[in-house]
């Protein structure tokens, strides 16, 4: 099954701007240019792609003038969509958050090294058996059958 993504990227950009606003030295998420990455990533699985398309088409059909609304009105439209179609709104929010938190400038601001989990992993202090000192004093309390 192949599903083409056919959404108005200006609407997605405007949605992103309201979902994740500017902070510190970073502009809002739409102005950081994440829309094309969202469209690319949504296309990586047919099931998700269909949900994403449905979400965007439903939102656009209910809000044909979304990009020209004032910010407060855009927030109202998004809140209505969130309440009426929580699963579809959730798909838009989920992929927006995923793409936003992939960005190195975002990583720098929140103090995250941003590596993929592998191959480097993380460092931890080794196992220290002395932590068992107290619990080892407890008598066995498992129930015999």
């Amino acid at each position, binding site marked *: 099954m192949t599903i083409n993504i056919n959404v108005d990227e200006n609407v997605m950009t405007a949605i992103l701007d309201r979902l994740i606003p500017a902070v510190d030295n970073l502009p809002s998420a739409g102005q950081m240019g994440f829309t094309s990455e969202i469209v690319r990533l949504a296309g990586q699985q047919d099931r998700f792609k269909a949900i994403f398309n449905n979400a965007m088409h439903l939102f656009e059909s209910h809000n044909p003038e979304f990009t020209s609304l004032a910010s407060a009105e855009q927030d109202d439209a998004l809140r209505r969509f969130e309440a009426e179609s929580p699963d579809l709104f959730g798909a838009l929010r989920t992929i927006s958050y995923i793409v936003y938190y*992939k960005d190195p400038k975002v990583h720098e601001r929140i103090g995250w090294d941003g590596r*993929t*989990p592998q191959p480097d992993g*993380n460092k*931890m202090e080794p*196992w220290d058996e002395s932590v068992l000192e107290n619990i*080892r004093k407890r008598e066995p309390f498992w*129930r*015999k059958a």
Partner: protein
Amino acid sequence: MTSNKGSREETVDVLVIGAGASGAAATAWLSEAGFKVKCLEQGFWQDPSKYASTSPDYEFEALTNWSSDPNKRQRDEDYPINVSDSPVSPVMFNGVGGSTILWSAHTPRFHPSDFSVKSLDGVADDWPLSYEDLEEYYDLNDEVMGCSGINGDPANPPRSPRQMPPLPLGSDGMRLIDAFEELGWHWWPSDSYINSQRYGEGRDACNFCGHNNMGCYQRAKSSTDLNYWPRALKSGAEIETGARVRRITTDKSGTATGADYIDSKGNERHQSARSVIMAANGVGTPRLLLNSSSDSHPDGLSNSSGLVGKNLMFHPFAMVTGVFPENMKTWRGPLSNFAMSQEFYETDESRGFVRGYTYQFQRSLGPAWIANGGFTDPIPWGEDHHTELSKRFGSMMGLAVIGEDLPEIHNTVDLDPELTDSDGIPAPRINYTVSKNSRDQLDHAIENARKVFETAGATDIYVDPLMRQSGWHLMGTARMGNDPVDSVVDKWGQSHDVDNLFIVDGSVFVTGAAVNPTPTIQALALRTADYIVSHRQDLKG
């Protein structure tokens, strides 16, 4: 009836359906004992170097192509499951290694009391075997899978030395542990099938990437494609991947004769066998048995008791999450396997319910996972987003509640009248309700988890009273017992109805205990295989 369709293969001694936790263990044991064994697996081999944890898109992949929920993953080798009548969705992976590819590898054992709940507490039924009957197989399985942990847990019987020391607890883990100690409550480092040091051929130590809920690039997390399967193949076992079983076939006398299946190229085939072992998990096995009805088994194979697909048990999970005032870098270290508490495991009737629960300690992951809720609700969008992310990121810990879910006959797996997989084979349908006893357990656990987080100094506490996507533990749908009237298989996993049919997955559980079930599933599989070796040499050609 034996199918005449498709091409015929050489008859094998044992045909194993499913290459996951239990199928791999049984195959290795039997092939090493000289049986000619073939396994049919609907999924494929996985290449650890291509797991999603090395991809920049790993967060997206974990929710889609690598989701543990087959209804979300939707790979060609997956089958759909109708979950519209269940508050809990089954999760699993179809491939060589089965769900051990995506499991957390938290591996506590059943307690002795778990096998005798009728005698001790007057509920459900006793198992037809005891902890002592299984202990040597637990030990054998630990050795193959590789267990990190330490002896001396006062909540459990003494056990053999673990293969490796425990995984490190971390300063974040100690924050929870200190709270448990202050409350005077039990805790202990978890038994985990995750390497704390190199163990097994080609398997590194864990490098604490955090994502033990994904396939393990390091091969540090044990999965049966890395241990049992190499042994099985070395001793002559055969595995066919991309092989989707349509039905178990039988002759006029009702004896199992093999399986009809669709191979990876879409050809209808038949594999003949002198015996069949079902290892397709607590949903897949009843689905196949019900799809295998015949003149001699009109209600489904091995279903004279009517109990195939009945008594489905999950462990309904609750999750309590605390946010601490400081960033403890909680993304370091296994997400969910470093410690547990069994303070409230055994029955205490003053609590208002029978049996009990385990707390499994949890960490958290990176910022996208946090933003999308992790184990709780997503972070709000809009003006408060950045402030809330800053509070939770690196600062969230969790307590997962695993309560004992007692068997109830109305909790079922059956065949959906309309839904099928891509080969037209009827798909399973789940009908499941959380019982009052399970709900009371979870509520009790939630209140006590609040006390832990308050004692530990958490500033915010979030509660998910019932996690939807938590049906990892699929149990009870072809239960074992001594009486064919009220059980499907005997204490050796042998069908009461069909003497050359065995079941070795979680379907055979009589009760579910309050721990992750895989070591028990694998120990039972080894015990069944051992029984076949010692008592069923007649199955050898």
